[in-house]
């Protein structure tokens, strides 16, 4: 069985850990530069406001609807994510982090194990120790685990275990809700009479391979319970951009870790660019074996979470940002099994000309030409680059950010 654990409305849940006044209220978190909605509480969803709604459209209705907005606090989210992954690693030997708040877990248990109870124990531990409610799904394949996770989230226990009669569960599931089936593909599938997940699963793998791609055929197999996406496979699906590989033999040198990670970053960045996305940051992890001689040491995982100065799809910028942190992945004396990288804070769409970002690219003359023109037209240094300093209040693009409760001594919560 494979498990999928993910945080409910993760960014909002993180904000609620230390600010209880947000409980039960319609809360949303905004993307960088307070652009648009990237996370919503259930109460916010109930108001019918869609993901991706721009902030300026919400502004006039804030008071009327009673909504509360927060600027993204990625330092906080990264820290909470790290904690959750750490707790999962106490329950299972293999945790495959997939995004900032999701992980596939690979428990080492036999059949006849009480998965539901196990899920409940994990969920309540994460809720107690960290304060984030999670959904957990167990199933024989990654694709089914995703479905189980969604069902689990809606259930009262938060946990769902895929029964052996898979057909019952996915018979009426719309095919567009299957992992990896996007809108374009859904239209094409519907033209072939495939509307539900079970219809996809039973269509015929060869036919699917011919008509679409091997990816779709694999998804169909996974829906029937046959594992195609192993732990070490490239994540071939567009909602997550990650890259990980098991090492051919245990790695013991830092230079090999650094080199392989750099390679994974460039491959993952290719995928990012191919989809027209940019990432706000990256998680890098390395998994090491347990040792038995000269004395027992547990296996585990080292991880670094690196926010980028500005969201980017440029490999060079990413490698620059990541370089000073790589050493944290490596402990002398450990033998490494695999490493992986996962982008987070993905943003789609046209290039956001972020005028307030630090001057990263030396050949940004065109950018600064525009900045100068606008300054001239609107006068009085209407726009300045971030490198000139953040202290100017009117420059603040994170007006509604919560404190860095867990990463800055000046921001730790006050108790009376």
């Amino acid at each position, binding site marked *: 069985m494979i498990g999928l654990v993910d945080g409910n409305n993760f960014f909002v849940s993180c904000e609620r850990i230390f*600010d*209880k006044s947000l409980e039960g209220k319609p809360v949303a978190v905004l993307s960088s530069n307070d652009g648009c909605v990237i996370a919503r509480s259930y109460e916010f969803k109930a108001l019918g406001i869609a993901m991706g709604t721009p902030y300026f459209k919400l502004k006039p209705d804030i008071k009327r609807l009673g909504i509360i907005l927060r600027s993204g606090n990625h330092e906080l989210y990264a820290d909470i994510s790290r*904690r959750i992954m750490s707790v999962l690693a106490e329950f299972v030997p293999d945790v495959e982090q997939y995004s900032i708040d999701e992980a596939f877990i690979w428990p080492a248990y036999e059949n006849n194990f009480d998965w539901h109870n196990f899920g409940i124990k994990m969920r309540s531990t994460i809720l*107690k*120790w960290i304060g984030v409610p999670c959904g957990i799904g167990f199933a024989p394949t990654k694709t089914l685990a995703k479905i189980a996770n969604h069902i689990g989230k809606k259930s009262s226990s938060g946990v769902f275990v895929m029964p052996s009669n898979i057909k019952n569960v996915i018979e009426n599931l719309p095919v567009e809700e299957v992992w990896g089936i996007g809108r374009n593909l859904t239209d094409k599938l519907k033209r072939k009479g495939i509307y539900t997940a079970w219809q996809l699963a039973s269509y015929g793998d060869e036919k699917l391979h011919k008509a679409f791609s091997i990816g779709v055929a694999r998804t169909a197999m996974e829906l029937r319970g046959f594992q195609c996406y192993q732990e070490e496979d490239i994540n071939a699906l567009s909602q997550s951009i990650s890259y990980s590989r098991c090492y051919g033999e245990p790695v013991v040198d830092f230079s090999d870790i650094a080199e392989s990670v750099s390679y994974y970053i460039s491959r993952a960045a290719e995928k990012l660019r191919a989809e027209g996305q940019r990432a706000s940051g990256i998680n890098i992890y390395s998994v090491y074996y347990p040792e038995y001689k000269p004395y027992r040491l547990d296996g585990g995982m080292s991880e670094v979470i690196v926010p980028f100065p500005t969201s980017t799809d440029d490999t060079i910028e990413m490698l620059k940002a990541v370089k000073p942190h790589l050493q944290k992945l490596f402990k002398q004396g450990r033998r490494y099994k695999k490493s992986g990288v996962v982008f987070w804070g993905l943003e789609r769409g046209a290039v956001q000309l972020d005028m307030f970002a630090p001057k990263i690219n030396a050949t940004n003359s065109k950018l600064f030409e525009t900045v100068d023109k606008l300054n001239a037209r609107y006068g009085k240094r209407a726009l300045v680059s971030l490198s000139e300093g953040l202290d100017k209040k009117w420059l603040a693009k994170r007006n509604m950010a919560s404190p860095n409760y867990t990463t800055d001594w000046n921001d*730790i919560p*006050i*108790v*009376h």
Partner: protein
Amino acid sequence: MNKNKKHAQIMENVVMAGFPSVADNYASTPLDLNELLVKRPSATFFVRAMGESMIDAGINSGDILIVDRSLEAIDGSIVIACIQNEFTVKYFRKKNGVVSLEPANENFEPILFKDEMQLQIFGVVSAVIHQFVK
């Protein structure tokens, strides 16, 4: 003296003229505050105490408290609780089924709970850090 800067090794045991040190048999690592005070990093948070309500327990205004959310609160534990969306630090008391939060200062009143479920405990305070030099 090895002037080659490429080999920057910290020699923990100085080798005396040809004789290996008996101390080589003993692993030595410096004392680590994290090891002492943060037993479970994933569940440990830091908060700052303000006010005098727990002064008799040795918690002064401005002190940092180490909060372990994995610990169970028992009668006499110092806990962080959430009351009306604000965090407070008090003794957790549970006697004969009655649950209350007690201050450690005679000038403050305890808070009683009719129903234990109403009391939201954030975590148990495992240590207090009082810095004389900041």
